[in-house]
């Protein structure tokens, strides 16, 4: 493992307010947590986890599905759903429609969530995976709708539901439509709960705002990826409101575990087997 930066490893201090740089093109990448220069293909081989400090890089939905499910088993549905801009959102000449187009091109995804059926170590599941590169994984109508469709599929086929969350929260371009998706997904999960369905929610970096305050927190079992940012209000908002420096490690997965809001922190390489194990425990 070649390491360029020789400076002392800086300790991970929770979420950094510094703007996260996107992975630059080329062979090298810098870990946003320990700031080591890393060989890109080595990071990729390591499931996009920093070999130096175990920082879990943000990954797109398809990469995530590739890590998680049995080869060739993912059958995606409803991939055509797109927002039709209910508010006709336009702020100083920046329209939501433009943003949707741009992010579709950027992420190769039509929305911030992909759903479908898959097998994880031979166990059938309904999978809902968020796409952090599409409008910051925010929840608008389509994300709410897809999550509900996934719940309904899971009820219909009596399968466990696994959601991989990664989201900046509600999508403000859809206003109250977006807010309503929090109630909608929670109501659908209440129904799933009544039907005896098993819901595993995996919170990855970052899971904040309206997604945390709805379906992400409503799993029977809550899993977090190491060092992921998880919270309600964004750290910037909190810092600006209370005008106090935030404590070390605030709003990390470890913080959530310590305060009793997740069941376990699971390394990316163990996620498949942990999910399979939980399904085996809870299978009726």
């Amino acid at each position: 493992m070649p390491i360029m930066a020789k400076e002392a490893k800086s300790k991970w201090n929770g979420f950094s307010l510094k703007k996260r740089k996107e992975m630059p093109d080329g062979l090298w990448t810098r870990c946003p947590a320990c700031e080591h220069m890393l060989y890109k293909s080595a990071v990729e081989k390591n499931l996009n986890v920093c070999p130096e400090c175990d920082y879990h890089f943000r990954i797109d939905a398809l990469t995530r599905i590739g890590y998680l499910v049995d080869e060739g088993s993912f059958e995606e549905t409803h991939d055509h759903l797109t927002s039709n801009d209910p508010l006709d959102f336009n702020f100083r000449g920046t329209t939501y429609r433009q943003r949707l187009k741009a992010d579709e091109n950027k992420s190769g995804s039509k929305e911030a969530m992909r759903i479908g059926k898959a097998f994880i170590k031979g166990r059938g599941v309904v999978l809902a995976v968020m796409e952090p590169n599409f409008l910051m994984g925010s929840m608008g109508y389509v994300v709410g709708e897809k999550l509900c469709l996934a719940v309904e599929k899971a009820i219909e086929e009596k399968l466990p539901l696994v959601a991989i969350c990664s989201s900046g929260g509600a999508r403000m371009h859809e206003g109250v439509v977006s807010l309503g998706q929090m109630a909608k997904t929670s109501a659908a999960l209440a129904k799933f709960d009544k039907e005896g369905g098993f819901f595993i929610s995996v919170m990855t970096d970052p899971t904040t705002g309206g997604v945390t305050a709805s379906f992400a927190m409503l799993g029977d079992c809550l899993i977090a990826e190491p060092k992921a940012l998880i919270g309600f209000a964004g750290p910037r908002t909190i810092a600006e409101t209370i005008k106090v420096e935030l404590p070390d490690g605030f709003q990390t997965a470890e913080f959530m575990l310590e305060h009793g809001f997740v069941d376990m922190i699971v390394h990316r390489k163990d996620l498949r087997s942990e999910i399979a194990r939980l399904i085996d425990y809870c299978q009726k």
Partner: protein
Amino acid sequence: MAIAQDKNPEKIGDGDYLDFEQKVADFDRQMDELRRLSSIKGIDYSAEVRRLQQEQVAELKQIYSQLTAWQTVQVARHPKRPLLPDYLNLMVKDFRELHGDRCFGDDRAMVAGFGQIGREKVLIVGQNKGRGLKEKVACNFGCANPEGYRKALAKMKFAAKFGIPVVTLIDTPGAYPGIGAEERGQAQAIAVNLFEMSRLPVPVICICIGEGGSGGALGIGVGDRLAMLEFSYYSVISPEGCAGILWRDGSQAPEAAEALKLTSKDLLKLKLVDEAIAEPLGGAHRNIHDTVYNVEQYIIRTLAVLKRTKLETLLENRYAKLRAVGSEPTAVLRDKEHKTKIKTIEIKHVKPKSVPAKA
């Protein structure tokens, strides 16, 4: 159910005029001057005063019939706007407050208690922003912490056990963004409220009376009906916050308010709220009694309808309503055709090395 629209508005204090009400303020000043003169000089100016009054009413009607979104936000945040305690005093008989979340504490930003509205026993839950600095601080300016949401839910379950309907009065800039709030699980508390309120086995009426700030409002805002006072607002993010994110400049809030479609008029059009409750001429703060009366009448009328509905049907309807949120403005998406279409996509599989799970 417009009432009192033509009654002369009550005079408000000098500092209580909003930026866009300068003409209204001028009329008041002129009338005061005439009244002063007539008392000094004994001349009868009552005809002039009446004329000015009529002009003032016309001016207020004009202004309030075409408030911009940002002006609406200012009315909703008006310091003299009726707050939860006004409703409790004027509308609720025999109110008995219930304290505490049984876990951490008693959040003063969230009030819950039994009372009677019309002839119905209800549980009232709502945020209190507080009036005057001391009370505002005690109430945390209406920004509830997790214990507030947990208190609300605990009391709602209590009420549901005995078949008592729930009325929530929403008035909050948002759930509190603080260190303690995160430590105690603000997100989890709100999520659980949405989850449980969606299936609470009694009628639930939610009314936004002032500020409907995002998840903090929604945390007590899931039910069979959602109504808004005419000049309240309900939004996924504050206009300042939205402008800050999109434009890195909170002072662009007026434009953001417009873009967010947060007024009762817009939300009715989008079918995201069920009803807008009329406010007296010139906004709720100009006539607290009439405002509260209008809200009371809405509650009585709506409760009568909901109480006639069989519980099973009530819950089915509530679920259908929540499940359909947003499908009206985005109706084009709801085609069932694609449901069966399955696509297998090319994915690069990386086999993680790890311990196998027990089979």
